[in-house]
């Protein structure tokens, strides 16, 4: 795996805005089959985002359910029905960040002296990619939940900046500034890791 390799294409199965708007309307109207529709259509998105947020490991079904419980209970807060997806992603990122904080507390209280969790097996055929994945999530474990959220949504989930801003509930300019800062911090850590240095080698100053 080398950064000069052509970037992999990302296929996003994004429903149309009309679909999201009609689903939002059904949810707000408390239509009987609306929650099942929402669950069927959006749970893969939530599971994927959770997996990318937490890294390799089993699917976080428990967190997915918690996301939808919050999503259903707060559906009346949705102002723009076309932004149903961003609304759900925002809830999902909030749940993920809370879980991350709780996991840190659990780790301080219960787990190993080093604070490291046991490595989960990583799939994939490319050993370089597996190592890079393992290393990047170790780095993400050392940054703030917000930096992790911005990095994951931008570079792994490939969300647009406007979408990220809406999901995290911040102005676009603030989101840009914080994403740049998060990127610098993570890139600085990557430059010290042999498995990831190539991704930031040859670039200008990455950390300030």
């Amino acid at each position, binding site marked *: *795996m080398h*950064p000069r*390799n052509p*970037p*992999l*294409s*990302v296929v996003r199965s994004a429903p149309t805005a009309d679909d999201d708007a009609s689903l939002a309307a059904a*949810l707000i109207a*408390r239509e009987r089959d*609306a*929650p*099942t529709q929402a*669950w*069927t259509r959006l*749970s*893969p998105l*939530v*599971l*994927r985002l959770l*997996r*990318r947020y937490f*890294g*390799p490991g089993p*699917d976080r*079904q428990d967190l*997915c*359910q918690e996301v*939808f*419980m919050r999503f*259903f*209970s*707060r*559906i*009346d807060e949705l102002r723009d029905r076309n932004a149903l997806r961003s609304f759900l992603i925002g809830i999902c990122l909030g749940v993920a960040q809370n879980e991350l904080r709780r996991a840190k507390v659990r780790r301080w209280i219960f787990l190993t002296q080093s604070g490291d969790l046991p490595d989960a097996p*990583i*799939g*994939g055929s*490319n050993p370089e*990619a*597996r190592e*890079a*994945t393992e290393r*990047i999530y170790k780095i993400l474990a050392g940054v703030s939940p917000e930096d992790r959220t911005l990095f994951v949504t*931008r*570079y*792994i*989930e*490939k969300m647009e900046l406007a979408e990220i801003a809406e999901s995290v509930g911040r102005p676009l300019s603030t989101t840009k500034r914080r994403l740049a800062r998060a*990127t610098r911090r993570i*890139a600085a850590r990557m430059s010290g890791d042999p498995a*990831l240095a190539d*991704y*930031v080698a*040859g*670039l*200008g100053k*990455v950390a300030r």
Partner: protein
Amino acid sequence: MKLSDVDNEMREQHLDALGDAIAETIGTPAASAAGPLPEDVARVFMQRPRRKLRVVWKLAPVLALGAAAAVFFVFRTQPLDYQLSGTYAARDDAFETPGNGTATARFSDGTAIAVGSRSVARVRARTRAGATIRLERGRASFAVVHRPGARWNVEVGPFEIAVTGTEFDVHWSDDREGFEVIMKSGTVVVRGSLTGAGIPLHAGQRLVASLANKTLVVNETSQSDRRSAAPSEQVVAPRDEPPPPRRARQVAQVAPDIQLRDQPPAESPETLARLRALSPPPFEPAPPPAPQAPPAAPAPQMVVGTALNAGGASCNARPQPQIRFEHAGEGFRVLAGGGSSVFSNPVIDHSYSWCGGGSLRLDSAFDVADSASQSGEAVIYLPRAVDLQGKTVTVRFMVRAPFDAEFSARIVAGQGDRRTGSSYTPHLTAGSWWAISQTFHDTPAGFDTVTSNVHNVDRIILKVDASGSFRVWSGALYIDDISWR
């Protein structure tokens, strides 16, 4: 395009590539990975949110806390309440008792104030911590309940009594400007006229002050009870005695700092009767002690050529003495015994002085044969404690007595219950101004003290011992100009 933009774009590309690799490595969950919608999740959807209610419930703890705080604040800041009982006539916050009745004010904290007959008291202010009571006339007994942070004040004429928790009686006669505090328990601090920075009183003590006479006396009530025949020692701010009208002053006098009344105002028969009704009479100066025995034969009196300003040109020396005894307002107080003591009745005398227009005069009665009457102490409490380490104290004094009276004297510095002093200066005689000095150090020599603390001296004592062959005599001790350098 800037170089930094190129860098950023390249970094974006590289990180995008890394993100793609990660996404590919960790994969995407299958569409059916979540399974069917769990029932408990669906149940949440069916519960219609009660948003307004939720907001209220979210704020409920805050509101409850605020309400509790408000109740607590109101309760805590609620001033003490009180109820009157007895025979009284109330107007506003004041209540007055008739000649044959008393009244009691009971406060909500348990404090009780019993007001005697022909008295007027006023509750000037009330707080949750206490109250300010003004006794405008008559007498009152205070039983203040001790509580943390309690603050009670009793205003009596120009005096103020700060109380925390104690029992005491207060008498006040405005027409005679007399003031008396009798302590039963606890402590108070009396401030106001004649008290300097304040006088603390403890259980068993009595303070008597007279504005008319400029006197303030603190004594032990228990001791005075035991010595009914012989008054106890008293701390006195000596009254200022008017100068003799017929004596022409030979030098210009320094005007006193405060206006002193030359004579007490004439009392009406009613006033005198009312004062006599007060028991014990606290305001009248004690009568001068009767001489224990008259001299065997009339002795020739000494002749003093210059009564005032005997020091002459030496009085112009600077700096001036710290205590000049020009008037009673200089802040010193005098401990003078009663009839059983050698020295009594301290007054500011304007007939004789070493410098200036006044001196401290004490009546004296010596009996060489009687050990109790052989030695006398004139104790002058300083306005504030001073450090006499390495300093020389000088006291000028004169004894007016029969010419053949002989005595010795020494200076002692007092610090609480400890004393430091010098040996006697012997063979002093009456009719002359004497100056004796003593330099103080922490370790005195030639004196029977075990320890000393001359860093914190609160009183200067002139100790006079009668000697010689003339056994029984009486006269006056004049002290002027105490200085320390």
